[in-house]
């Protein structure tokens, strides 16, 4: 019926083409190396101008590839001819040529190369002197961050460290990636805006399983002008990661061990005492029953405060019943005359009878502590012919909470070979295996703070109780006992590159990466009391293959001493193949075989496979020019084609242009008086465009049809509307920056930067009117603009031989975040996804549309109700009820229920007699708009007693509000599993009490009197966090050498240490999920102790 093109060879022509080039190149290079006959031997030593011997210096006979390197003592020996010239070279030193001319001993003193110690910045496909950079690029040296416990994901080390880069760890599962957003991203709200990662030159969606100890440097391309060279996927910035490379010189060994201790005690909330809890529970049970017009009936099996039978017919507790509450006299009579161990007793406030119960602190069961062991080993070194680095690590995390274990094996090796004086080549491999046991989708954490203490955890015989059959709120221990689950992820990358200097300054560099990622999963549920003998089984495997081929041509040349020109041209092709195979079944007859076997009932099994392909083709170029490093210019262009778009819209152009002026290099600068302390001034301006298509599916452009079945007959229906006119989403960004350096050695540096960016043609699911039958269609919806200010200060506050104090601080202000253009839809400001509220300027007039997105408006407004306090007596209640009906209730049966003393009075803003969704007013914003961070590093070199280092990082965010009525402080529900929150203590009981509503603990469903955004339950999430602290002690070199080590240090550090905030939920940084513990464990406090040894 349909003819798919047959792919005879998976990787297609592209693969064979590029591989062919690569192999041919390799052959050519090998032929270049030819031998020469030598006639004599020359010896010598190489030293620096201060007299230190230099190991690893490359000595090459000019015009050949023959050569050697100096040994550990800087000595060398080489066979030469009389007419040879020896070329001495070493990184950071000026090249020196010495003719042999009859000498047999040649001692050389190499001079430091001032140019080469200039800071160099990675700019994407190449590097550049920092002085000439004209875009917004930040380089973060990874080494100082390596002792910060990263929880298994290297990106966590960046939290609070970089201006303009928000990193939020919302997930305490080991190995989970944090949410990273650069300059507020391009999507309203937080999340879904992760930057593009370039690891050792190749594109990745995330950092993957990389070990932080193996990272040498992060480079962050923050603005569109710098990111434009990466084009179509760089709209949210680019993070370039460089892993360790070997260096010419001696052979180094580094070993590092650290032990992490993690806890989530911050997320434990203070609770009522067991006795109090049962008191309020019984009272609320009574209140609840009355409020919905039910009679008070004890004995409901699933109501946790209900008294259970304890009788001869039902000896002991009722199996699976949630409640462990019994009448004391029943327990005594049928339980052997005495209260069994573990039982508490208290008076029932409803009947006055004595209750006996077992109490469990559920927070203790689910918000558990964790620990981790991390081992890291690196071997590196090099000669002038080759450099190498091999890193291996093993991380074993027994994480916080339940179902949170993580094991990672990591291996990374790279080697570079100088094949000839013109040709270099390198290979690298990277392999990670992750063994995860995490996130089984049960709301363990959400429940931990809300689960009633009287819910049974252990059976009387000490085994875990199954608990809450069919409600999904299982006992984690019971669940773990009955669930077998294995998940292994692998990630393998093989890379090779070659670099050939065709003529002086002109280089050609082809490279290739082959990557294979797999995820393998198996689960089996043993026969148990919850699911019976169903024995559900599933297994799946995904296998993703990605290839990236790239070729660069670069040309660097200085003309007439002052004109520096750098050209880059390149092309890249990426394609991917994703296979999934999945199977599930049930009905095994035994617990003994957890895998899906062929003898299982066929009708129970579901199997499917999927196969998806991706392809991206790019061409790019860059021109960089400066005049004497004074006037700077940079322009880049990228042309990207993407398989997701339709024929006419496949390709997009992404230009970037920037210019700069190093004012301090002008002649007049040094003539000014202030130049004695005002050392550096640089002004840059940039404009760039970068694309985004990550949130687009090929189905959005082509339309999609899905399948369904009914009564065994398969059908097809259209599931996604086609929109062939979709084009690239593009971020257009204009920026300007002033950099200044003050005092000797630029001891004080400051920069101020302003950006103005717009996400145009935003890809968005535009809501459609209902008559179309679709909720939305993916369109290029409009423009979202943001402007921001970034100020960074860097200072060497104290800088003596013994003591140094380096401080850096940043302040980010999102000056405005506005929607500027939306499609015409007939509403005011073309608002989409809005809702009606009372017009504050004309309360009795027509309601106004607010929320969602509207032209000219900041996004993320939070609207809420107006709480007028607790009704104190029946007079007040009568007066309120005479004019108000509260329509808001989860249960319609209680809608319009009259208010009683102890209830909240809610304002009727539009005076229509109804309290409903129109009676909301603006409360604040959902996302913060100001960030601050500072890192301070103190270093004391005692000399004979070694070095002491101390550092800390503070981080702050302001400008957002969030509610906490979902939280355990507030939550309460007489029916089901939620217990009264601590606010019950402060609830209204008699006239004059004015804290919380009386029924706060009882009416979650019944009258829904409190569960809404309003003053008592919404707080600012402004916070100041102590994000990291670290102590490090380094042994004096002499001592270390005595025990055969080159270097020895020990460290202790902590991350996520604490918050200063008025927010009442557990973690104010979780702005989009504040106070809502969910299925994943929250980010833990981690303490880390370790040693770092170098041989």
């Amino acid at each position, binding site marked *: *019926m*349909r003819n*798919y*093109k047959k792919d005879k060879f998976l990787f297609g*022509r*592209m693969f064979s083409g*590029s591989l062919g*080039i690569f192999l041919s190149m390799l052959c050519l290079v090998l032929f270049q190396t030819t031998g020469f006959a030598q006639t004599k031997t020359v010896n010598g030593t190489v030293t620096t101008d201060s007299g230190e011997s230099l190991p690893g210096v490359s000595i090459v006979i000019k015009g050949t590839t023959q050569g050697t390197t100096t040994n550990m003592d800087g000595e060398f020996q080489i066979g030469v001819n009389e007419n040879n010239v020896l070329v001495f070279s070493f990184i950071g030193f000026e090249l020196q040529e010495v003719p042999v001319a009859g000498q047999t001993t040649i001692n050389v003193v190499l001079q430091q190369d001032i140019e080469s110690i200039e800071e160099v910045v990675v700019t994407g496909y190449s590097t550049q002197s920092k002085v000439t950079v004209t875009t917004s690029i930040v380089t973060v040296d990874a080494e100082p961050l390596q002792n910060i416990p990263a929880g298994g994901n290297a990106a966590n080390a960046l939290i609070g460290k970089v201006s303009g880069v928000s990193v939020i760890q919302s997930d305490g599962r080991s190995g989970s990636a944090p949410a990273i957003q650069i300059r507020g991203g391009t999507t309203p709200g937080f999340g879904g805006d992760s930057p593009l990662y370039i690891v050792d030159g190749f594109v990745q969606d995330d950092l993957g399983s990389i070990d932080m100890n193996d990272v040498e440097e992060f480079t962050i391309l923050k603005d569109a002008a710098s990111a434009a060279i990466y084009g179509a996927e760089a709209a949210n910035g680019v993070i370039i990661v460089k892993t360790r490379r070997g260096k010419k010189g001696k052979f180094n060994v580094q070993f590092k061990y650290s032990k992490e201790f993690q806890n989530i005690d911050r997320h434990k909330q203070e609770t009522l005492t067991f006795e109090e809890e049962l008191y309020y529970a019984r009272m609320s049970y009574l209140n609840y029953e009355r409020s919905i017009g039910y009679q008070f009936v004890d*004995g409901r*099996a699933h109501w946790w405060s209900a008294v259970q039978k304890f009788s001869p*017919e039902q000896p002991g507790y009722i199996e699976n019943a949630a409640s462990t509450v019994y009448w004391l006299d029943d327990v005594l009579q049928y339980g052997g005359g005495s209260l069994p161990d573990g039982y508490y007793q208290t008076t029932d406030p409803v009947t006055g009878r004595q209750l006996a119960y077992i109490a469990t602190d559920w927070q203790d069961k689910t918000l558990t502590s964790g620990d981790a062991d991390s081992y890291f080993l690196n071997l590196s070194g090099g000669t002038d012919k080759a450099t190498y680095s091999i890193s291996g690590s093993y991380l074993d995390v027994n994480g916080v909470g339940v179902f949170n274990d993580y094991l990672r094996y990591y291996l990374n090796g790279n080697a570079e070979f100088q094949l000839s004086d013109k040709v270099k080549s390198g290979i690298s491999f990277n392999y990670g295996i992750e063994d995860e046991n995490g996130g089984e989708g049960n709301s363990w954490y959400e429940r931990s703070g809300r689960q009633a203490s009287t819910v049974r955890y252990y059976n009387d015989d000490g085994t875990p109780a199954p608990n809450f*059959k*069919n409600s999904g709120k299982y006992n984690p221990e019971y669940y773990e006992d009955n669930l077998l689950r294995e998940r292994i992820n692998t990630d393998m990358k093989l890379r090779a590159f070659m670099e050939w200097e065709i003529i002086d300054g002109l280089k*050609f560099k082809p490279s290739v990466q082959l990557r294979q990622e797999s995820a393998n999963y198996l689960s089996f549920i043993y026969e148990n009391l919850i699911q019976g003998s*169903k024995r559900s089984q599933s297994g799946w495997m995904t296998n993703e293959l990605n290839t990236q081929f790239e*070729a660069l041509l670069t040309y660097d040349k200085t003309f007439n001493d002052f004109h520096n020109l750098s050209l880059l041209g390149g092309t890249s*092709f990426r394609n991917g193949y994703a296979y999934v195979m999945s199977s599930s079944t049930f*009905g095994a007859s035994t617990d003994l075989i957890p895998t899906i076997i062929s003898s299982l009932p066929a*009708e*129970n099994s579901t199997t499917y496979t*999927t196969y*998806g*392909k991706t392809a991206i083709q790019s*061409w790019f170029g860059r021109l960089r020019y400066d005049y004497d490093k004074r006037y700077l210019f940079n322009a880049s262009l990228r042309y990207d*084609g993407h*398989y997701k778009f339709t024929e006419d819209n496949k390709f997009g152009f992404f230009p970037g242009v920037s210019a700069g002026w190093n004012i301090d290099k002008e002649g007049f600068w040094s003539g000014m008086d202030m130049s004695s302390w005002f050392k550096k001034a640089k002004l840059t301006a940039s404009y760039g465009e970068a694309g985004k298509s990550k949130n687009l599916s*090929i*189905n959005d452009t*082509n339309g*999609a*049809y899905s399948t*369904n079945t*009914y*009564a*065994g007959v*398969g*059908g097809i*229906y*259209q599931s996604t509307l*086609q*929109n062939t006119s979709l084009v690239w989403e593009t971020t257009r960004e204009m920026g300007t920056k002033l950099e200044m350096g003050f005092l000797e050695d630029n001891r004080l540096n400051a920069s101020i930067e302003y950006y103005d960016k717009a996400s145009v043609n935003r890809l968005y699911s*535009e809501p459609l*009117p*209902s*008559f179309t*039958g*679709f*909720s939305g*269609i993916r369109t290029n919806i409009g423009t979202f603009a943001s402007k921001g200010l970034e100020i960074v200060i860097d200072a060497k506050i104290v800088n003596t031989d013994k003591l140094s104090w380096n401080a850096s601080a940043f302040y980010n202000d999102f000056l405005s975040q506005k929607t500027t253009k939306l499609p*015409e*839809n007939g*509403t005011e400001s073309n608002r989409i996804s809005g*809702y*009606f509220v009372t017009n504050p300027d004309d309360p009795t007039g027509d309601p106004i549309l607010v929320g969602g997105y509207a032209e000219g408006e900041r996004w993320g407004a939070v609207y809420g109700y107006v709480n007028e306090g607790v009704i104190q007596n029946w007079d007040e209640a009568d007066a309120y009820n005479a004019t108000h009906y509260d329509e808001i209730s*989860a249960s*319609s*049966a209680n809608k319009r229920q009259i208010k009683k003393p102890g209830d909240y009075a809610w304002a009727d803003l539009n005076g229509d007699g109804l309290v409903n*969704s129109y009676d909301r007013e603006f409360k604040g914003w959902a996302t913060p708009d100001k960030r601050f961070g500072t890192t301070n590093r103190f270093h004391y070199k005692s000399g004979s007693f070694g070095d002491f280092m101390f550092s800390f990082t503070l981080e702050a965010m302001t400008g957002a509000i969030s509610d906490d009525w979902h939280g355990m402080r507030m939550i309460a529900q007489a029916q089901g599993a939620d217990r009264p929150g601590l606010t019950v203590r402060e609830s209204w009981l008699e006239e004059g009490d004015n804290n919380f509503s009386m029924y706060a603990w009882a009416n979650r*469903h*019944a009258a829904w009197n409190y569960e809404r955004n309003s003053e008592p339950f919404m707080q600012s999430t402004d916070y100041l966090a102590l994000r990291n602290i670290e102590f490090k002690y380094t042994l004096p070199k002499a001592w270390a050498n005595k025990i055969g080590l080159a270097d020895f240090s020990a460290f202790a550090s902590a991350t996520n240490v604490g918050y200063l905030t008025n927010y009442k939920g557990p973690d104010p940084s979780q702005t989009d999920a504040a106070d809502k513990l969910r299925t994943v464990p929250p980010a833990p406090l981690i303490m880390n102790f370790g040693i770092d040894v170098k041989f």
Partner: protein
Amino acid sequence: MKKILNIFKLLVLSTILLVGCVDHLDVDTYNNITGASFWKVPGDAVAYANGIQARLMSTLDGNDNYVGITDARTDAFRPGGLGPRFTGHIQLHTQTTTLGGGNWSGYYNLLHHCNLLFVKIEEIEFDDAAEKDAALAVAYFTRAFIYFDLVRIYGDVPLVLEPTLGKPELENYYARTSKDEVLAQVKADVDKAISLFPSGIADKNFISKPAALALKAEVYMWTARAYSTSAVVADLDVAIASIDAIPGASGGSVSFVTSDWKSIFKRQANDCPEYIWANYFDYLVGPKNNLHDAITLRIDNVPIEMQGTFPIAVTDEGLNRIEIGSNMNTIFRKYETIEAHDNPFDKTDDAGPFYDKRDLRYINSMVDTNGDGSTNVCIKFPGILVTTDNRRYWDNDLPIYRWTGMLLLKAEALLAKGQTSAVVDILNMTRTRAGLANYSGATDFNTLENELLDEVAREMLAENQRWWGLIRAHKVGQNVPRFMANRGDDSTDANIWNFYYWPIAESVKIKNDKLVQSPGY
């Protein structure tokens, strides 16, 4: 120099290779069917019709689209305070534009699929005309069925007869079309469906000609009675003729089961002679029955002493059950059977005469969980007990059209035409099967109409006849007290539809400025 030349050649070659592979961006898609690859062969249209049918059936399984918007709005079920009882605004008649307001996009999604099929099927060449007719018939039936529901729920609705092919222009947004025009379209569509369907019922889980006749009868009964207290006789006649045509069109697969009322209801629709069209459920292959999961008995709310009394219950199944409305007790208990009979749920077998002489439909439709007649739970569709899973699956196929329902609908038409003895004849058919004596009460219009409504309640509990029946009889107010309390008086004046119609949700209205809110909101 030669080497350098060679390398330049390679460079040129590589550039050509890299630049030349733009066609690699046209990747094949394997996981989805796209617009470019579909609607080519007759099989596509057949599969699309199947897809429409599957989506229609899952729509009917939704809580708010079946019992939830029909029987649950009446006195047949008791709204509860919380949990999986009928607590929604729809069932309580407390809807506002922001709370429980109607969102009809699910219905319009189905309409789009029908409209798309009408357009695209013409692009395909069929060798077998019957194949095309069958696909068209499914789409016409579905469009009629959906618009009929929409008109009954909202009155005037946008009449969309074209598929959505992209983002519509603002000026092309649809306003509401008058209900008369929409009903005329419904009638035209159902007639087309009847003419296109082959005779007979191949499978009762699927739409067929008899099902289309049943729909036609319902539509004409609606236009005959709902909007006026004086019936439109011409429409009554069409309804009667449509019903009379069903057994013939069914090829003998639909008939009245004269004995053992309980035996009518089987797990599989095709085992049920009375069924015309039923929604398919199967716990093994899916779907499972959402609705009856909620409305049928759950043992955990049965007191411990009573557990074990009911053969269908399994210990501790979790959710609460939805109770039968208390008025149903009165209606079901109105008559005693002629003969005393065994009560299958009486453990002690010493129950009094009350149990022994209950209407057979009473003891087979519901269980009295408290033993005092106050708390009844539906057990009409008991599904299957799967001991290995430790639970019961409520997976009976649920009848949408059943022959007895059609007979009682015909009785309603005959009554409106004044043919009372024919009405009593039909009543006696169902009464006899339930163990009751022949009807001997008054035969004036009002008494007989009430009697007929009661009989439909007893016979068709949880089969979604009562709400529409009460509207057709203009008797919502007298039977559904909470409707009176929450929505206002049930009178026959022009205003009554302000209370029956649902508001459209604010979110629906915001997205389409041309829509006016339903009257009364």
